[in-house]
């Protein structure tokens, strides 16, 4: 079956991103397809490559990047929410005149239409948030 996943909270602050990751992994292990993982609200902060978590803790961002690589996942970060919170890729940084970008491997920035499309194309949409 085809699932869409919505992640509404940032890494570490709230369990939502952990739960979404565990759910996504379990769905893949059961042979389901993940149409897209969409990051909204503070969820966009899951996509920064600048985190340095303590060595004895999980690395939430890397975990998503690796899962995406293994399973060719589509990890989409909402552009409007990302702009409010300071999450940029190289193109966006140029366009906005910013001198740095911080997006991690495996994530792409796009519009809210990608969330609606995930709702239309997936057979189930599951929301993880606060």
């Amino acid at each position: 079956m085809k699932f869409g996943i919505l992640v509404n909270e940032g890494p570490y602050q709230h369990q939502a991103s952990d739960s979404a990751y565990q759910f996504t992994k379990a769905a893949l292990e059961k042979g389901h397809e993940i149409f897209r993982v969409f990051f909204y609200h503070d969820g966009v902060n899951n996509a920064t490559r600048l985190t340095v978590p303590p060595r004895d803790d999980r690395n939430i961002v890397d975990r998503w990047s690796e899962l995406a690589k293994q399973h060719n996942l589509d990890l989409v970060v909402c552009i409007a929410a990302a702009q409010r919170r300071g999450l940029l890729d190289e193109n966006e940084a140029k366009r906005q005149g910013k001198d740095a970008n911080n997006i991690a491997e495996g994530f792409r920035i796009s519009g809210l239409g990608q969330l609606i499309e995930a709702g239309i194309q997936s057979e189930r949409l599951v929301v993880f948030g606060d």
Partner: protein
Amino acid sequence: MLHTVNKSPFEKNSLETCLRLASAGNAILLFEDGVYGAVKGTRFEPTVSNALTNNKVYVLVSDLEARGMNTDNVIDGIETVDYAGFVDLVADNKSVQSWL
């Protein structure tokens, strides 16, 4: 229809509203801080036990264990599931309503 509740019933009103608006026959999954609603001996046990007459209630075992509890602490009639079981619940129901 599957309802998910990830909030402690002591802290927020999410479980209360979920139980009020869930239709008979709907499934309810408690996870994250929502697992406290599945525990025996709390102020909310009667409310949740009562919901069991109309709804199947599930609790995510890894979130229960993280918080120092296990199957023995769960109200009779509530079923424990792991993430694979969570995935099955989503697949088996037509839609999912997250009570954030």
